[in-house]
């Protein structure tokens, strides 16, 4: 047991969770108070002592599943599993008349029949049945072979494709509509849809867990944990984020902005007092008959910088630019004015898309579809974009402006026109460059980041939420 726990904690650490020695000891002590056969209680005990942030919960869950999955002969890939058969028997019994002669287990069912059982289980929200079906589906469709070095996602895709979840969803809605006489009101229809979507999601997770279990049985926990290792939300790389991760990041950005706003406001309020304000002290001394009894101090004026964001939205860095726009606009209450420009090889101002719009996602979608950013061929040309920017908007830069340039500076071997950045720096308060590429890639190939960098106040590597957060804090 001790070995498993140590291995488990080691894996948590390599997944990036900060687990201290004290927490380790606490976990060891906690599990002693928990009946070991109660898997859920065991899990919660470990979670309470080891996981101290909600965003780490997912990682914890995955690792937990891998390390404390049910192991044994019945879980191996070749055999169909005894429990599933038992459940299938029950299911058939429940289905009554439809029982086929000779076919006791699910193996005997045709694809259509399996789909039918699944449909029924979904209608009733029958958890045990869904679990059994997902097992059977994995055995049947995933085509898993021991020792085959293929990732879990491949099996998942194969299984889900055969289950045809889209079709299932449509059928469920049909059935729901038929059930009620006079049809559903739109509200009810929506609620039903939400309900079924959740159930289907549940099924998907069930299948995923099943595949993972089998892979663990096949390859061993350590190897499996390594392949499943995913970065924590704050460390996810913008450029390589999957769609699911992107959605998570978007959710994470809202609380992040609130956190930042609170921290910035606090810093301001508790900022040091300024030097003695002589005029004010003398003025207030009048009420004491000219004795300066109450010294007055100058309070430092909070800098409310104007922000100009100039972002490359060509394919290579689009995801990153979207996030930065998101973040900058979300905390625009901290800045007196935010103006945004986007470019590929042409450049366009997009500030108007953000005005009066509550939903930033929508605005960004508009930016991506409506802004006029293509000049010749739609490959990044920093030089041309900067030149146009200088000609059209250069005059509007003033000493309150901070300019953020976002991009990987991969210029497709065009002229750099770095003088624009130099001029910008003369007129504006700060010029920063945010680069979503890892530092080691800078200046390789057609990247000319250092050519611009020499004219900037700072160049920051900005690959994940943590770094982005750090930068914004630095800015305000």
């Amino acid at each position, binding site marked *: 047991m001790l070995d498993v726990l140590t291995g488990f904690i080691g894996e948590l650490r390599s997944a990036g969770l*900060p687990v*201290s020695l*004290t*927490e380790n000891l*606490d976990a060891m*002590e*906690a599990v002693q*108070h*928990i009946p070991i056969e*109660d898997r*859920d*209680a065991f899990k*919660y*005990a470990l*979670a*309470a*002592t080891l*996981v*101290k*942030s*909600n965003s780490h*919960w997912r990682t914890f869950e995955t690792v937990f599943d891998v390390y404390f999955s049910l192991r044994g002969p019945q879980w191996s890939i070749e055999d169909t599993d005894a429990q599933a058969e038992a459940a299938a028997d029950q299911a058939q019994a429940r289905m009554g008349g439809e029982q086929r002669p000779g076919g006791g287990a699910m193996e005997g069912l045709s694809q259509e029949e399996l789909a039918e059982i699944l449909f029924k289980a979904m209608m009733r929200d029958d958890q045990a049945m869904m679990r059994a079906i997902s097992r059977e589906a994995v055995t049947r469709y995933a085509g898993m072979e021991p020792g085959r070095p293929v990732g879990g996602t491949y099996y998942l895709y194969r299984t889900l494709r055969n289950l045809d979840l889209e079709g299932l*969803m*449509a059928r469920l*809605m049909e059935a729901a509509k038929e059930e009620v006489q006079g049809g559903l*009101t*739109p*509200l009810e*229809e*929506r*609620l039903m*849809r*939400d*309900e079924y979507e959740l159930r289907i999601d549940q099924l998907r997770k069930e299948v995923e867990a099943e595949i993972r279990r089998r892979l663990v049985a096949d390859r061993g926990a350590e190897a499996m944990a390594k392949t499943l290792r995913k970065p924590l939300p704050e460390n996810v790389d913008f450029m390589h984020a999957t769609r699911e991760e992107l959605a998570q990041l978007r959710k994470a950005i*809202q*609380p992040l902005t*609130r*956190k930042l706003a*609170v*921290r910035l406001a*606090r810093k301001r309020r*508790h900022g040091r007092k300024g030097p003695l304000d002589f005029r004010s002290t003398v003025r207030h001394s009048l009420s004491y008959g000219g004795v300066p009894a109450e010294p007055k101090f100058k309070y430092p004026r909070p800098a409310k910088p104007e922000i100009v964001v100039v972002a490359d939205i060509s394919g290579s860095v689009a995801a990153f630019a979207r996030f930065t726009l998101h973040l900058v606009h979300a905390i625009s209450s901290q800045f007196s004015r935010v103006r945004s420009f986007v470019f590929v090889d042409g450049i366009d101002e997009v500030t108007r898309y953000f005005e009066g719009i*509550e*939903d930033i*996602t929508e605005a960004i979608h508009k930016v991506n579809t409506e802004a006029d950013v293509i000049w010749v061929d739609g490959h990044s040309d920093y030089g041309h974009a900067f030149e146009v920017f200088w000609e059209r908007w250069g005059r509007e830069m003033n000493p309150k402006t901070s300019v953020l340039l976002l991009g990987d500076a991969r210029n497709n071997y065009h002229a750099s026109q770095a003088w624009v950045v130099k001029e910008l720096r003369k007129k504006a308060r700060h010029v920063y460059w945010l680069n979503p590429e890892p530092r080691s890639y800078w200046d390789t190939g057609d990247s000319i980041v250092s050519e611009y960098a020499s004219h900037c106040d700072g160049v920051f590597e900005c690959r994940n939420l943590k770094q982005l957060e750090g930068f914004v804090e630095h800015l305000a």
Partner: protein
Amino acid sequence: MSQTATVGTPRFPGVPDVRQGLRSVDYLADDGIAGVVYLADRLGKPVLIEGPAGTGKTELAKSVARMTGARLIRLQCYEGLDESKALYEWNYKKQLLRIQAQRVMDEKAAESDQTWTGIEDDIFSEDFLLTRPLLEAIRAEEPVVLLIDEVDRVEVETEALLLEILSDYQVSIPELGTVTAAQIPLVFLTSNNTRELSEALKRRCLYLHLDYPDLEREKEIVLTRVPEVEDQLADQIVRIVRSLRALELKKHPSVSETLDWARTLVLLGINSIGAEEATATLHILLKYQSDIQKAAKELSVAQSA
């Protein structure tokens, strides 16, 4: 770790008992919650509860107090909270009086040299100590539950005040020495996560994240807290609330807002919710105009596949 106070006899025999106990005071806990409360007692550790607003973080601490029949001592955190508000303070007015009184007596006795140390010992004794919530919880003889509410509101520096009490259940007063807990109180800290708490604090606590409850539990909560509501209406309520939470809103409806909504619907005599009823009463669930508009749009127009 050297713990001066030892873990006492367990308050609860097992996790199911915690769950049962909480249910008896109208708090519906799931296994995770009950498990953490149970562990907190067995390990003698504080519990840090995090989660969105209105999911019953404070309520949990209150319910545990009610369940165990303990006195609830609450420390509401705010910006600018300091030692003298959280831990203890010397009652300097009383101290002054004491000195004054001594002086009068001294004039008669006229041997002030000797008595000075006497006075000093005297005025820094427990008679002159004003206990604040943290010290009070430590010194209590009877069982207490200490609730440190919204701990994320204090500054990072002030957090350090809590560390000694959380890990060793003791308070050091320079003039008096160390006050150790007579019995280990159950300690709950709540946080709305407006800032990251320090590692040192987190390390000393068990962590519990309270999220919005799932469908069945929320329905049960509605039925327990608003008994007038009918089963079918409660079902509709929680399903609509769940749909709303799936939307991208500025602020999602909390459990307490769900309960408010249920009460409102009962008062209005509505037995089943249609799109119109929902839209008309949305302002109870949602607190931003833009959220209300968005939700109203989503609810009245069903997406067709």
